[in-house]
């Protein structure tokens, strides 16, 4: 068992970057145990709502009403989950969320890397202006475009449709920025030699640039999927009929409907909503946090 954390060190062959500084060896022992204890308490408090959510989702209505602050369910039951998958047809909403997220991710990966390549490696008139527009829109709050976007989508007849849910998020200025920055680091010599060999720009993009873009594409894909999956306000307004609800919309509408007092049901819905993301996050945590570290935005 190694004492060295592996996260900052990609290969086992990498020599330890930092020898134990005296400053730290002085604080090992008692001080370190205190730090561990404090962090454990902090992480426990942070995760407590999730634990309580999962435990509560296994309780029936009686038990929740009798003991609203109890922890362990007396007789755990999957009934709440079964009602979501049975009567409430959560499968449809789940599928809607998946379809919206997948198309949104695909669009962002393809279109942002294409324009990123042009901005990083090609010369064309209007390039500076295009990049300036992209950068400016990075700081536009979503609420500014919200109403005209709604009017536009409504007039296009896209209310209650997948295109209405997807198109406004199909590309993102952040994605363009991310891809442009990364593609800028691809050596020009590599592209030049391909040009010498007679490769066209599309071939260079598809065969040389894109295969090198694994890390930023993964980051962008994860960030986009996360944003799309958790997106709430836009789907709430655009998905007005039950067949086009996404998961967050369905859950929020159930939690304000006549089911509002069926707490176990709401908690089970919450678990269903967050579990794909939490699962992906636990498996791919490095990609998630890399995205934050490189872009500064979740």
């Amino acid at each position: 068992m190694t004492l060295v954390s592996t996260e900052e060190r990609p290969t086992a062959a990498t020599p330890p970057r930092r020898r134990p500084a005296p400053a730290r060896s002085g604080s090992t022992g008692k001080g370190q145990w205190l730090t561990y204890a404090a962090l454990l308490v902090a992480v426990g408090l942070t995760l407590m709502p999730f634990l309580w959510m999962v435990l509560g989702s296994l309780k029936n209505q009686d038990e929740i009403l009798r003991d609203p602050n109890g922890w362990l369910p007396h007789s755990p039951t999957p009934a709440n989950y079964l009602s979501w998958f049975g009567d409430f047809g959560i499968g449809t909403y789940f599928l809607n969320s998946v379809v919206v997220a997948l198309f949104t991710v695909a669009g962002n990966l393809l279109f942002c890397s294409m324009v990123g390549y042009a901005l990083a490696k090609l010369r064309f008139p209007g390039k500076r202006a295009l990049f300036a527009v992209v950068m400016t829109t990075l700081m536009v709050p979503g609420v500014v475009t919200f109403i005209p976007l709604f009017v536009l989508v409504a007039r296009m007849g896209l209310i209650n449709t997948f295109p209405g849910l997807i198109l406004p998020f199909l590309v993102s200025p952040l994605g363009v920025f991310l891809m442009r920055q990364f593609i800028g680091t691809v050596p020009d010599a590599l592209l030049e030699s391909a040009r010498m060999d007679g490769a066209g720009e599309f071939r260079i993009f598809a065969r040389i640039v894109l295969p090198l873009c694994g890390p930023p594409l993964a980051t962008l894909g994860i960030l986009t999927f996360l944003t799309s999956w958790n997106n709430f306000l836009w789907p709430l307004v655009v998905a007005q009929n039950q067949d086009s609800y996404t998961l967050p919309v369905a859950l929020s509408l159930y939690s304000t409907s006549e089911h509002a007092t069926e707490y176990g049901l709401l908690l089970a819905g919450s678990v269903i909503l967050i579990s794909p993301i939490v699962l992906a996050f636990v498996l791919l945590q490095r990609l998630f946090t890399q995205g934050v570290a490189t872009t500064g935005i979740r």
Partner: protein
Amino acid sequence: MASVVNRRRRSPGARRQAVVAWLFAAPFVVVFGIFMVVPLVSSFVMSFTDFRGSDVADPAAVDFVGPAHYLALLSDARFLHALRNTGYFVVVGIPLTMAVALLLAVALNNGITRFRTAFRVGFYTPVVTSVVAVAVVWRFILQPDGLLNTVLAWLGISGPDWLHSTTWAMPSLIVMAAWRNMGTLIVIFLAGLQNVPAELHEAALLDGAGPWRRFTAVTLPILRPTLLLGAVLLSVGYLQFFEEPFVMTRGGPLDATLSITYFTFQQFGFGDYGYAAAASYLLFALIALLSIVQFRILRTKR
């Protein structure tokens, strides 16, 4: 691209490249133009008109009203109230979130070698989860007889009905937002802390500096740009404060948690599109101002 081309008369090669480049940019430009640039401009134009929801079918009924909406907003008690609430949220929420995140990041960076990834995953989990999902649990925690008040009762404190108190609703949402956002800052701060050279700490130690002195004299100055980045990201996010009040309090009680974005969304609900657009542009102006200040500070640091 070795050939130096006259900027006016492009060689056929340069022209071909320009065409190809625009082809690469085309899908983005079309989608972005239609769904971002056009709404951005329409919103601005709309803010000077009396455009209402009912006018969508009949744009001819829309009249130009000049800066009337902006003037009205500045004397609209509810908007000013929303502005104050947003300010409260930003001014209390940002230092709180930053302090907690910095404390945890420093703890994770110092002395913790094992389980660091696991801890980081734990602190980051609230960031990846939907606010709609966690709202259900937080409403439970903040109920009059909820978890929080049960714990307070052990200490002999009788807690308020957090979300239905005009005094306590906002602090409750601030704590919830800090819980949701600290993970992002922890990751950013940890990355920044990795850049503090161990040698500097050793030198300070040799000079007889204690842990607190080393933190304030060595770590903090080097971390300054990172802290600034965190503060700016957080303020841009917090100025748009919306989801927490929307799912937890509906802006209540008595507008105690009404934010600017919430106000805008309400005007949209009332069909007052022009007025809502003006409010959203005032928010945009606030954020833009903040971003300009940020760029200034970051530039002088480099």
